[in-house]
């Protein structure tokens, strides 16, 4: 034994950190918990990340957000979805259903670690879809959606457009020679994939409370009671997304008080 176990936690006077893996659909996923060091927090948020290049771009501000949640008295669980980061599986084999199930399993992992905490699912961009799925699975009536991309087909079309722009309108790599299309080094699902059809769309149900944080006026999200937080500016890939996370934190603070 080389002593790799037993060093997965760290704490100082204000912050407790724990890193771990949890099962989801036959894979091991990476989880990272931020919590106050002194007392069990009354509330917590599981942040469901976006896909591919957006997962990576939003990871650093997600850690800053997690730290701010602790400073506000809550706990925060970050996780890497299947096929992303340090989690198991390859992105080429991951379906939308796998991403949705991972969010549910992440909430379960969070509850196992801090059971007295009232956990809320939050999702950013494509992760909003997973957050709605997780909230439904746990009979929660509250969800936080950050610049949500609820239409899977539109999200991947946006990824294709962004990739074409970055390549100065050149064809997507792999797209013309029968190989899989890719976006910034991430394999895109085929447009004919059933999980990308426009009708594959999750909406929060009637009676839910939805914290909706977005640039500009948000699109309607079903019949839920929406509490919008409008952030100045507009969504642009690769920009500083800190204002979105600040909006989400403001909503969570308000909701917890």
């Amino acid at each position: 034994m080389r002593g790799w176990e037993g060093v997965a936690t760290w704490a100082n006077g204000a912050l407790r950190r724990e890193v771990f893996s949890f099962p989801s659909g036959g894979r091991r996923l990476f989880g990272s918990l931020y919590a106050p060091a002194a007392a069990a927090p009354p509330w917590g948020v599981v942040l469901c990340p976006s896909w591919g290049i957006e997962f990576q771009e939003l990871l650093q501000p997600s850690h800053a957000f997690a730290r701010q949640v602790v400073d506000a008295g809550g706990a925060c669980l970050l996780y890497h979805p299947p096929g992303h980061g340090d989690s198991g599986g390859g992105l080429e084999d991951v379906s939308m259903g796998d991403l949705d199930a991972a969010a549910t399993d992440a909430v379960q992992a969070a509850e196992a670690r801090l059971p007295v905490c009232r956990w809320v699912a939050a999702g950013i961009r494509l992760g909003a879809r997973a957050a709605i799925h997780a909230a439904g699975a746990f009979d929660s009536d509250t969800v936080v959606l950050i610049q949500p991309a609820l239409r899977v087909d539109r999200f991947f079309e946006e990824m294709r457009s962004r990739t074409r722009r970055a390549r100065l309108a050149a064809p997507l790599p792999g797209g013309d020679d029968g190989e899989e299309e890719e976006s910034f080094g991430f394999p895109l699902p085929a447009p004919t994939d059933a999980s990308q059809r426009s009708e594959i769309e999750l909406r929060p149900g009637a009676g839910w409370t939805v914290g909706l944080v977005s640039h500009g006026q948000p699109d309607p999200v079903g019949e839920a009671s929406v509490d919008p937080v409008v952030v100045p500016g507009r969504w642009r890939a690769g920009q500083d997304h800190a204002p979105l996370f600040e909006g989400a934190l403001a909503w969570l603070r308000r909701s917890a008080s």
Partner: protein
Amino acid sequence: MTEHPVFIPTSAGPLGAIVTEPTGPERVAVVIVEPSADFRFGVNQLWARTARDLADLGAVVLRADHVGRGESATATPEAPDPGESLREATEWFRSRTADLDGVYVGHCLGAQIAAGLARADERPAGLAMLTPQLRPMRGAPVERRLRDLYLALRLHRLRAAMGVSIPRRLAYPRLARDEDEGLVGAVVEVAGRASVYCLFGDHDPQAGEAWRLRSPSGDDGNVRVEIVPGVNLHHFRSLSAQRESRSRVVGWVGRLLEERDRSPDPRASSSTQGAG
């Protein structure tokens, strides 16, 4: 294969890391170093997958986020050099794997850190650098720096073959000026004790310089340079770049281990043979 998420204590705070452990016998310890702006898992999990492949060969693999980045966000950088906390993390890792030889893999500016870590290792077996940034020697034009590196590597082989000892500052006067801070000095030193592998894509800006590191025979003793045709490896923003990098690095480590296993004296082999 088992993956252990860990926090490694350093003077800057805890570094978040993953240790990948083989299921079978442990044969070598590998440290993978990304540039400080990237994450430990790499684009589309390049380094996470590479670590898993290496574990299948018997490697115990460390991947850590740089201070202030990703899972190391809690750590506070105290100095502009991100390599210092990574050096401490590597010491922590190597203190637990002291019975194994060390292999270091670095990409871009991470290659520079990896070279420094390999140089400091008591049991280095190899250094793999993917699209390394060749740090300029002070005041010297690029062509002269590369020529000096090439000559220094040839001199090093000659010195080893003849068994004579030449003071470093006499043997490599120009390189010695920069040896403490530059990649070039570290490579020369590591090449004296372990295999060095340099990988470029021929669309990489650095690829033109890379060819000049090679001897006419295509293989310069402990230093091997490979250039992958038709691809830009730098930052791995294509699936083909990821596939090439992963398979070639894993293949190189595999050959390194095979050569060592074939040798009657594994320590001697790992320090004198280049993995072809």
